[in-house]
């Protein structure tokens, strides 16, 4: 939170008059170094209707108000399915007092003024459940400021005090004079007004839009096939490329025999780039056939040789060694010494693939002196930086279009911009518009997985059955650590990263009242085994270990797992509130006949969640997940239905990982390739999902990842209840469960 508060103060609003009249507003705290100076030609990317400037008053690149009073809000966060294109405009519209039915939204250009305040206004970066909570305060201020300027303009026009006017649904209303003017009518005059430095914000009790659940603004286009994703971008003279990549990460093409590939009708060329060998063709099918005909001999001397089994053994050994401390409370060693018993358990989690429905793809139009790029990404700022490096262009020579993504889950938030760099490398050689498409197999085998992790937890218990000490050790590749090791961000983006432990996603929030706590981690860096954050990051493994182990302790001291947690959360009211709420909603303690329940709780992203999973296990180990009940406190829900949708989504995403998710490597080669050998949850395997919001009125918390981490431990605890077996590794198919 401290970060957020500090940043919101840095917000400011720049206003200028546009050619042809209108109001130009930009918000954000970034430098004004961006030369993305297309204020007179509104962005027409992302399938948005081109707006004729003659007919529309522009409220900058941030917002447009057209003469018919329609408002278009540009959104700096990436739309990856979470509803950024709906929730963020709702925040602006609230303070603007806009008529929501006349509001639409588009993805913004990549420019500093659209950077996410959560990341110190330095990046457009849609990760860490940060979109809504990151942009929240800034968007409110802008909405409020523009509203005040519209009111001031009306006051001048009617020669009445501004204080006698009110606003409602995109109109300024003079009750005394019995007149009204639409925002559209007033926008030109409003542009002449001084920007209020401290516009007054609404009392949350008066919210009309925030807290309501209007339909998603992209719902219609997402049901008739008209919504444009990156893979749908089509520009004149565009070629299509696929890239043959080495079987082992970081292998290099040594000899390329492209005769057969070039003989495939439609294949235009074969180009070796750093990441592999690109086959460029008139269409996808020709490119694919060309790639199949390609003969490449790879130099794998320096390539990755990660082997899942070997790595697991190595991680388990490292669990015996102290790591980098990330939380130290009290004196663990002393507490252990005086304990009557110290128990521990080891856990293991494999690599997992994000497997978003839209495989990665990038369109690049590079002509030697400038470039235009279209791609679905969560990391537009850094993508643009890397594109500039590869193409030898300055940022203002690149027009970067952030396309909505067919899923992200972290894969499109790669700070190393892998797929954008590859595509730019191809474009640089051919100097013709090109769409680089990853097939599903490319996507599945292409690395940047949720890293494998080993976790050890221990607890010490005194003679009165109190937990006196808790330790938690993780061994995993940490993505953030990689950035430090490479000093990449420092050198590229000209800023210094905060201390490492503040940026890692390791679990340090263990909420239970235990006096002596030691949490440490081994931050493994392996450049030949590309790992990345995946929805809920380390919380997935850390909370699994924590919340299954706390269940074991409860049963060890003969307590009900719910009551045991509750007692230990006496100083954590928000944890307790969601725990109580879920126990109530799920009828804790009274599962349906033949079923067993498990429970788990956590807080992170300024939000809190507790979940109950109900399962049954047949004699032949057929596992059925019947029901998942979640209670969430995300402080303030901007759009409660979107919050519920995110939790439903997270539960299903988590179940895919828990039940089946496993990328295996043998001597550096990924063994999975498509949805047949990397199954994900399907309709018939989906349990009943119920979600309740128990908001606390606190500041907006993140919800995109919130529903993921507790599903695994709650499910594992339910399995223990059913068959008395503890789950120490994932996925469950490893423990020979058959998934019904």
């Amino acid at each position, binding site marked *: 939170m401290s970060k957020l508060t500090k940043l919101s103060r840095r917000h400011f609003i720049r206003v200028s008059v546009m050619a042809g009249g209108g109001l130009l507003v930009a918000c954000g705290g970034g430098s004004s170094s961006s030369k993305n100076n297309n204020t007179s030609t509104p962005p027409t990317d992302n399938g948005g209707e081109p707006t004729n400037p003659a007919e529309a008053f522009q409220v900058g690149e941030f917002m447009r108000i057209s003469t018919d009073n329609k408002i278009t809000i540009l959104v700096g966060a990436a739309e990856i399915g979470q509803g950024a294109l709906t929730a963020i405009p709702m925040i602006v519209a609230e303070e603007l007092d806009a008529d929501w039915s006349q509001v639409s939204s588009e993805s913004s250009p990549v420019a500093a003024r659209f950077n996410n305040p959560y990341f110190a206004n330095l990046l457009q970066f849609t990760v860490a459940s940060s979109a809504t909570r990151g942009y929240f305060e800034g968007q409110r201020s802008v909405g409020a400021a523009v509203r005040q300027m519209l009111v001031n303009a009306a006051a001048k026009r009617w020669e009445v005090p501004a204080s006698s006017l009110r606003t409602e649904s995109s109109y300024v209303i003079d009750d005394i004079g019995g007149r009204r003017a639409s925002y559209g009518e007033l926008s030109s005059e409003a542009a002449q007004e001084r920007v209020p430095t401290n516009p007054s914000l609404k009392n949350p009790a008066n919210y009309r839009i925030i807290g309501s659940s209007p339909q998603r603004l992209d*719902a219609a286009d997402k049901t*008739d*096939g*008209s919504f444009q994703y990156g893979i749908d971008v089509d520009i004149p003279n565009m070629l299509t490329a696929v890239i043959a990549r080495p079987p082992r990460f970081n292998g290099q093409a040594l000899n390329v025999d492209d005769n057969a590939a070039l003989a495939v009708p439609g294949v235009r060329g074969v180009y070796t780039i750093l990441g592999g060998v690109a086959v460029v063709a008139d269409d996808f099918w020709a490119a694919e056939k060309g790639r199949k005909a390609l003969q490449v001999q790879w130099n794998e001397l320096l390539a990755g040789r990660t082997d899942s089994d070997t790595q697991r053994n190595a991680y388990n050994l490292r669990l015996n060694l102290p790591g980098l401390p990330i939380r130290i409370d009290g004196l663990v060693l002393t507490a252990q010494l005086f304990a009557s018993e110290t128990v521990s358990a080891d856990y293991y989690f494999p690599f997992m693939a994000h497997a978003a429905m839209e495989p990665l793809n990038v369109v690049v139009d590079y002509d030697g002196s400038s470039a235009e790029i279209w791609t679905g990404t969560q990391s537009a700022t850094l993508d643009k930086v890397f594109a500039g490096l590869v193409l030898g262009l300055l940022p203002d020579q690149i027009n970067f279009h952030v396309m909505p993504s*067919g899923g992200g889950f972290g894969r499109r938030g790669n700070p190393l911009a892998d797929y954008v760099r590859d595509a730019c490398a191809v474009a640089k050689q051919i100097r013709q518009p090109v769409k680089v498409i990853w097939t599903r197999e490319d996507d599945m085998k292409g690395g940047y997985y949720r890293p494998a992790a080993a976790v050890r937890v221990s607890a010490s218990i005194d003679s009165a059955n109190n937990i006196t000490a808790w330790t938690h050790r993780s061994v995993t590749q940490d993505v953030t650590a990689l950035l430090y090791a490479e000093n990449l961000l420092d050198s590229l983006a000209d800023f210094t990263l905060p201390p490492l432990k503040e940026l890692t996603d390791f679990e340090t929030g263990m909420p239970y009242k235990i006096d002596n706590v030691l949490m440490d981690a081994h931050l493994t860096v392996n450049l030949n085994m590309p790992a990345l954050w995946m929805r809920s990051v380390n919380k997935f493994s850390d909370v699994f270990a924590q919340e299954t182990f706390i269940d074991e302790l409860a049963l060890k001291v003969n307590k009900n797992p719910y009551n045991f947690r509750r007692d230990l959360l006496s100083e954590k009211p928000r944890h307790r509130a969601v725990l109580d709420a879920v126990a109530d909603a799920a009828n804790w303690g009274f599962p349906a006949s033949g079923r067993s329940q498990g429970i788990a709780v956590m807080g992170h992203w300024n939000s809190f969640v507790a979940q109950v999973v109900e399962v049954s296990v047949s004699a032949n180990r057929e596992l059925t997940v019947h029901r998942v009940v979640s209670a969430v406190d995300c402080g303030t829900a901007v759009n409660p239905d979107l919050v519920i*949708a995110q939790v439903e989504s997270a539960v299903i995403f988590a179940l895919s990982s828990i039940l089946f998710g496993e990328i295996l490597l043998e001597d550096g080669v990924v063994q999975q390739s498509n949805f047949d050998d990397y199954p994900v949850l*399907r309709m018939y395997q989906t349990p009943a999902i119920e979600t309740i919001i128990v908001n606390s009125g606190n500041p907006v918390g993140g919800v995109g990842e919130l529903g993921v981490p507790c599903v695994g431990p709650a499910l594992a605890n339910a399995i223990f209840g059913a068959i008395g077996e503890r789950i120490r590794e994932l996925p469950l198919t490893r423990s020979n469960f058959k998934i019904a």
Partner: protein
Amino acid sequence: MFTIRVNGIAHTVDVSEDKPLLWVLRENLKLTGSKYGCGQALCGACTVHIDGQPTRSCVMPISAVGDKQVRTIEDIGNEHIGGLVQATWQELNVPQCGYCQSGQIMAATALLKDNSSPSDQDIDKALSGNICRCGTYPRIRKAIHKIATEQL
């Protein structure tokens, strides 16, 4: 050269005989509503109707289409039930990223045309070929029931 009938219109395309229908729709006919997700009939994102039956266009060679009627997401709203499915999808905020929804809608429309009051099991059997990574299954199920209960 192949002539195929898509959404009631005949199109002649000059493509290799093994080019999948999906890529002909997307690249040659610029009908990009049908999506590429797996290329192996594993995910259902490319689902179109061939003579009314949901079919994975990513594995159907153009040469296999013949004179069968192809219908895509771009046209399904012109069918009564297709329109109901789209409207209910919007009303219940079914789509998240939306990428799989063309396929889901084509599958759901075919189901409801065949069965005006599908059970949960009927829905499972008709829709389990369509993967959604955002996890919109509960809302898809709810939407199908809602249409069946209220409008069919």
